């Protein structure tokens, strides 16, 4: 049994009502969409907030639509399962549909939402445990302690960004719309995250993620996703890799690779401009895999051997390109 701590539950009916509740209660309030991350963390006593603001009733956070310029706008409350079924998402954003389909299991995909996924708390084998378990170790930087068990002596929490949709949306240049009583602002998904596992995104506690906008994508852009996890269902990612490639006439014009489930921030592989102008093929994909491996250092924050995860990084980069249709499968 993991009982929830007592809290006051609010069910606002409109966005302005929700935002004023968040502004009124500050750090003492937590927004809740599907609750599949928040309730588990509350059960584990990771948060001390005494107010939960349920978002389900907010019409402003719903819906999937295409804008006249070809952008796709996805409401924050879009269920993960809907991302796998929706015809517009499946045809226009197949790597997003793929990542969504690889999240958790069927029940959690029905319950969990896109906004909750992007705002997912970071994960670490030393913190996503009951309070009793954590107390035996004396806590850690993220909760109730002063040291990090993953990087002893480290001063930053390096818990892993484990949201599978973030790498995909980052490679597609998506932006999120954040609203507060003070107004709205737009942040790219790539810039949403910071390298601090205690709070790994720039969303202020009084802000809500309203929607995600995927800009019109150039004709011919292909995108793919590959995930490493121990079982085929339920498990969080041990690696979450998204790629996007534009290679008109077989020559690389633009390529993007983002890797999740490393530390607190999904890593956008740097230096990919060097491939511009190259004839696309397996050799280029392998060079990108090697570059990714050089830049990515899986940590012992996930219960899957970090050395092995590093060795299979390049394999998953290749698989993501194959999933994009840019390489033959296998």
């Amino acid at each position, binding site marked *: 049994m993991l009982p929830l701590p007592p809290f006051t539950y609010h069910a606002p009916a409109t966005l302005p009502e929700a935002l004023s509740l968040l502004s009124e209660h500050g750090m003492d309030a937590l927004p809740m969409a599907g609750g599949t991350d928040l309730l588990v963390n509350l059960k584990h006593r990771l948060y001390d907030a005494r107010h939960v603001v349920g978002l389900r009733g907010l019409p402003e956070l719903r819906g999937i639509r295409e804008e006249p310029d070809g952008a796709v706008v996805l409401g924050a409350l879009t269920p993960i399962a809907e991302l796998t079924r929706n015809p517009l998402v499946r045809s226009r954003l197949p790597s997003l549909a*793929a990542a969504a389909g690889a999240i958790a299991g069927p029940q959690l995909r029905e319950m969990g939402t896109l906004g909750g996924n992007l705002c997912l708390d970071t994960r670490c084998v030393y913190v996503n445990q009951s309070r009793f378990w954590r107390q035996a170790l004396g806590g850690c930087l993220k909760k109730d302690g002063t040291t990090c068990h993953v990087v002893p002596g480290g001063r930053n929490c390096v818990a892993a960004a484990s949201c599978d949709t973030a790498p995909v949306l980052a490679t597609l240049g998506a932006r999120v719309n954040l609203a507060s009583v003070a107004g709205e602002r737009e942040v790219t998904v790539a810039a949403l995250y910071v390298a601090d596992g205690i709070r790994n995104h720039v969303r202020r506690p009084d802000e809500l993620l309203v929607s995600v906008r995927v800009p019109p994508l150039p004709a011919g852009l292909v995108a793919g996703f590959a995930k490493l996890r121990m079982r085929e269902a339920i498990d969080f990612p041990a690696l979450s890799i998204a790629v996007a490639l534009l290679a008109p006439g077989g020559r690389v014009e633009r390529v993007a690779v983002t890797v999740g489930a490393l530390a607190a921030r999904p890593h956008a592989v740097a230096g990919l401009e060097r491939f511009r102008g190259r004839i696309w093929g397996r050799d280029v994909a392998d060079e990108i895999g090697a570059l990714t491996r050089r830049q990515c250092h899986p940590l012992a924050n996930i219960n899957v051997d970090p050395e092995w995860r590093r060795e299979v990084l390049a394999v998953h980069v290749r698989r993501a390109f194959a999933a994009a249709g840019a390489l033959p499968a296998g």
Partner: protein
Amino acid sequence: MPGPREVVPFTVNGDAVAPAVSPHTTLLEALREDLSLTGSKQGCDKGDCGACTVLLDGVPVLACLTLAVEVRGRRVTTIEGLAKGPKLDPIQEAFDACGALQCGFCQSGMMVSARALLDRNPRPSRREIEEALSGNLCRCTGYTKILEAVQVASGQCRPGEGALLTGLDPGAPPPSLASGGGEGSQGPGDPREEPLFPARAGGRGEGGTRAGGVAESDR
């Protein structure tokens, strides 16, 4: 201050109920403790096992991660609601006939997930069954007979024939993973399934991206 208890009306298995619950009461606690419906099991209590699966307006969800206050006015179906009076649901008959249980702890969640599947897809393929049950953990590892029971319940074979019917192919990933999406895949699969993504997308999209994803088990 925790909010006060409130009366939350909803229906369970067709009956109107109105337990008085605290804001932090889960649907699972309300069912088991306030309504004495103990068929939904409390396994992990944190989303890992599926033993608490119920249908919320026909959709399978985890009762341990659902607040009771959030089901106000909605329709909940638990394992107790599958049988109609003395008449068992065909899924229950099939689980019995196939011996699809060992300790039994996962069974109510398994059968509720299976009911949701058959309600939307009366003749699912083996892979669609695997996919639909992939959020339900059986610690006794009785999966073979559980999958067969769903095939029996959907009239596709008799007890003992499940593996023969579609061939056990441990290498084939469930549909959501093959393509990362819903049903359909790039890998070998049921030919009736419409592929989610073309096996090899060409380079000329008209805006929007092509192709999809794979999971580790794909190769």
